[in-house]
Every structure is written in structure tokens, then in C-alpha cells.
């Protein structure tokens, strides 16, 4: 029986540009292209967009995108902090704003030239202003040359290995699985280019224990969504995907990609804290989830997420992966678009788009009969997660 209420948030449109290493156009143009595609997909004119949401590190003003898609008046706009950890922030905000009657049609976008422009993996800081909180925070790391997301997440991965006995090969199996999905996804940068575990083990060391093939890509591209109420969605000629549950989470131990000070940094405790709530709100259990997109900036981050969301017991994720459960045909296929490792790094939003395709039944790596899906935002940052469901499921 559907639990949908009239003002529940439903994703009715998705759009994207191609994913590349050099888009050859501005981030604003990318954001506009993806947004226009999402509106066309939804069959909603831009004039109806009265809410816009994106997240930090996007360099495009909400009002510039809104104007160019033909928007008239913006009643709701928001921008969530913490980079990839905020990938579900806009969906959370849309969910709340729609339920509260604040607006009717929310456009969500992320457009970036993260490969041809400022590369996150390059050890650069976006804002060197001494009043900027990033700069204040990173002051305890950058002077030592501790400057890249790979090196920061390597710290948590090393600790996970120490606590639970996971190995580099366990990380490698995650990379192999995602590159397998990417190999059959024409939109993926690594289309038709699968790798073996040997390829992973022979890839260069980036920040021990992370090898090159443990790292997500750096990509140019944009992804956009249109979210409206269930009541409005029923009038559209689209397969809507409802946001069954969504929330964000930050804890006292949370930091900006440097979560080094908690009692146990092997885990990302935000996911442990959110999981029960999300399942309860959605009225579902782990067994009900058919497919997942878990944030994969680096392969090791998948392991504690599988545990937090109850697909396996704590400390058993490496075995779960080794047994093929997250791979093609497995119990809970993870990142069927190839993830940010195999498809593209659009700061988490391309994973949300893949979940929408899965629940519409249009993924190139379709999981048969997918009714419910889990999607997460960045690991090692204040983050978020959502359970999405087919409109009728």
C-alpha cells in the first residue's frame, strides 16, 4: 500500500550533460543544460520552477540558473554546506519545503568542471581567505602537506583495516565491481573498460592504503532534478520516484573531510546514526532495499556503509563484497551506473540519477523489479541519506 501523501516529494525529472574530462564550456552552461533536460524530462515548463537548491562548491548562482530555465519567481532557494556530504541536502530541503507548502516545483542542480577546472584531488583549497572556515579548519593539515581528500580518507580506511582485517584486495573488489557496471554503461567514462583485481593491485599508490583505482574520477559535467509534490506528479506523464525518507546528519565528531577526532574513525558514525530513522520513516527494512548508490569517493568508504544500513553485520562487509553481493546479480547491487569510480564524479548527484532510473526501470544495468533503493551522500563529512521508492510501491 502506498504511503504517499499529497505533498510528499516526488522526483519527476532527471537531466544530465555528458561526463568528460574537459567539457569545453562554463559550469553555468553545464548547469543550465542539465536543468533544461530535467524539466523536459518532467514535462514541466521552467516558468513553474519556484524553488532551486544546490550545494556548496557549486560555482553557479541559483538565480542565474532559475532565470535561464525560464523561471518567474523564486519562493525558495537553498545551498547546503560540506561538498559531497551535501549531495542529498537539496532533496532534504525540497522534501521539507514541499511538505510545508513553501513551493511547488524545486529544481536541483550541480554543474562542475572539476577536471578541467579546479581539481579537488590536487591539494588546493578553494578559499584562502583567513576568515573562511575551510581555511581555518585546514590550517591543521595543509602546512604538513596533508592536503588531499585521498590522504584524509586513507586515515579512516587504514583504521578500518586495523579494526576489521580488511585488505587492499577487499577494496579492489569494490573497484572491480563498479568498473564492471561502468563497462556496460555508455554514459560512463569507463564504458567498455573493465578492470581485474590484478589491475587494481598494480595501480599506483596514491595515499597508502589507497591506490589509483580506489579513487573516484575527477570529472566535468552536470546533473539536475525536478522535484514536486505527489499530487502534482500524478498529473504528469512520468514515472515518479518518491522520496520515502531523507535526512542529513552531523555529529560532534563530524569534520570537513577530516573526521579524525572521534572514538572510532574506522566507521562513518553519521551513517550508523541515520539508518534506523530512515528505515522507520520509510516503513522498510534492509531486506526491502533492492539496489543502492553508496557514496564512493574512495572504495573503502563503501564497507562501513554496507554495515550501517544493515546489509551485513559490522565488520563483515569485506566478506559480503567478496561473496559478490554488491556486484551484478548480487543481493544488493551497488552503484549500478559504475559509481563515481566508473561513471563520473558529479559530487554524488549522478548516483541519485541512477537510482531514479532503477526505480523507473530504465537503467542500463537494471535490477529486475526494483521498488525501493538507498542512496547516500559523502562519507567522512557531515552527510545525508535517502530511501527512494517507486511511486506505486
Amino acid at each position, binding site marked *: 500500500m502506498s504511503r504517499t501523501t499529497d505533498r510528499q516529494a516526488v522526483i519527476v525529472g532527471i537531466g544530465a550533460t555528458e561526463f568528460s574530462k574537459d567539457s569545453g564550456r562554463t559550469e553555468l552552461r553545464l548547469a543550465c543544460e542539465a536543468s533544461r533536460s530535467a524539466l523536459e524530462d518532467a514535462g514541466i515548463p521552467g516558468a513553474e520552477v519556484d524553488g532551486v537548491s544546490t550545494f556548496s562548491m557549486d560555482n553557479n548562482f541559483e538565480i542565474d540558473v532559475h532565470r535561464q530555465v525560464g523561471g518567474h519567481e523564486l519562493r525558495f532557494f537553498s545551498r547546503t554546506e560540506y561538498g559531497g556530504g551535501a549531495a542529498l541536502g537539496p532533496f532534504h530541503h525540497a522534501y521539507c519545503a514541499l511538505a510545508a507548502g513553501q513551493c511547488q516545483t524545486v529544481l536541483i542542480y550541480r554543474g562542475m568542471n572539476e577536471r578541467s577546472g579546479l581539481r579537488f*584531488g*590536487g*591539494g*588546493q*583549497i578553494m578559499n*584562502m581567505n*583567513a576568515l573562511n572556515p575551510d*581555511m*581555518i*579548519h*585546514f*590550517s*591543521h*593539515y*595543509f*602546512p*604538513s*602537506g*596533508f*592536503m*588531499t581528500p*585521498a*590522504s584524509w580518507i*586513507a*586515515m*579512516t580506511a*587504514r*583504521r578500518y583495516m*586495523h579494526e576489521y582485517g580488511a585488505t587492499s584486495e577487499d577494496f579492489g573488489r569494490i573497484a572491480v565491481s563498479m568498473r564492471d557496471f561502468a563497462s556496460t554503461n555508455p554514459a560512463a567514462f569507463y564504458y567498455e573498460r573493465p578492470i581485474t583485481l590484478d589491475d587494481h593491485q598494480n595501480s*599506483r*599508490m*596514491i*595515499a*597508502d*592504503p*589507497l591506490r589509483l583505482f580506489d579513487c573516484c574520477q575527477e570529472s566535468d559535467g552536470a546533473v539536475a532534478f525536478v522535484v514536486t509534490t505527489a499530487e502534482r506528479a500524478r498529473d504528469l506523464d512520468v514515472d515518479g520516484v518518491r522520496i520515502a525518507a531523507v535526512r542529513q546528519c552531523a555529529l*560532534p565528531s563530524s569534520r570537513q573531510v*577530516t573526521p*579524525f*577526532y572521534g572514538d572510532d*574513525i574506522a566507521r562513518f558514525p553519521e551513517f550508523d546514526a541515520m539508518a534506523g530513522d530512515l528505515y522507520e520513516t520509510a516503513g522498510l527494512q534492509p531486506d526491502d532495499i533492492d539496489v543502492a548508490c553508496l557514496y564512493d569517493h574512495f572504495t573503502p568508504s563503501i564497507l562501513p556503509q554496507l554495515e550501517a544500513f544493515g546489509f551485513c553485520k559490522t565488520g563483515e562487509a569485506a566478506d559480503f563484497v567478496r561473496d559478490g553481493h554488491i556486484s551484478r546479480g548480487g543481493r544488493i547491487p551497488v552503484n549500478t551506473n559504475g559509481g563515481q569510480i566508473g561513471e563520473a564524479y558529479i559530487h554524488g548527484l549522478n548516483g541519485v540519477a541512477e537510482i531514479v532510473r532503477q526505480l523507473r526501470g530504465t537503467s542500463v544495468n537494471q535490477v529486475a523489479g526494483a521498488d525501493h533503493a538507498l542512496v547516500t551522500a559523502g562519507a567522512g563529512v557531515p552527510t545525508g541519506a535517502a530511501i527512494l521508492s517507486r511511486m506505486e510501491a
Partner: protein
Amino acid sequence: MGAKSSQRIRPVENYDSAHFWQGLRDGKLLIQECGACGLRRHPPQPMCEQCQSLDWTTVESSGRGTIYSYTVIHYPEIPPFEYPNAIVLVDLDEGVRLASQLRGADPDDIAIGQRVIAKLVDVQDDLTLPVFEIAP
């Protein structure tokens, strides 16, 4: 863009953190301690998260501690750092955790649980950092 190619990025020194950086220049690794409840904290922050007091003092760390986690960075090679660059998270004996470089160790020999000691090193003009070595 990042730092000038030959210089490390300098830390922000503000009302909350200047004591830490000046302490290093003065040869002391100073840890914040709440003036009300005594909770020690690092990195510096203005308010005690346990009792919300704005009063704080410092205790001088011995620099001794235990490796809690570590990474050895190989790529990208960012000037002026030398690679591989080993970074350790150290549980200091004074009860706080601190991230910094580890020098003089073969990367293959670094392990969680090893005892280390910080030396205060003038890494460039007007920038002194705690740099760890494996304890003898």
C-alpha cells in the same frame, strides 16, 4: 590556487588558535584545556563542547604519543614537500589527537600502536610544526 610553489601554506592564526602556533615558535606544543571542567581539546576552538565555558588555559605536551592511524602520501607531489610524505594521527599522552608529519621512518615500518615523539621543527621562515619521529 594553492601556495606559492616553494612555500607551505601558512595556517590561519586568529584569536582562537594563535597560542598554538606561537607556542610552536616558542618551542612548546600547547594543548587547550578548559578552565572550568578541565577537558582538553585539539584542534583549538573557543568554547568547551562539554561545559560551554569560554575560559581556557594551555598545558604543554611532552610530544609523546601513540600512532592511531597513518597514511603515506605518494601522489600528487605538491611543492615544497618531499615524497613519500608520511602523515600520522597521534594520540598524545596528554589525551588529545594531533595530525602531523612523521620523519625518518621507512614507510613499510610504520604501524598503528607505535610510540612516537614530536620534535618542533622550523620548516620554513616563521613556521614551526611538530614533526614526529619513532620513539627510541
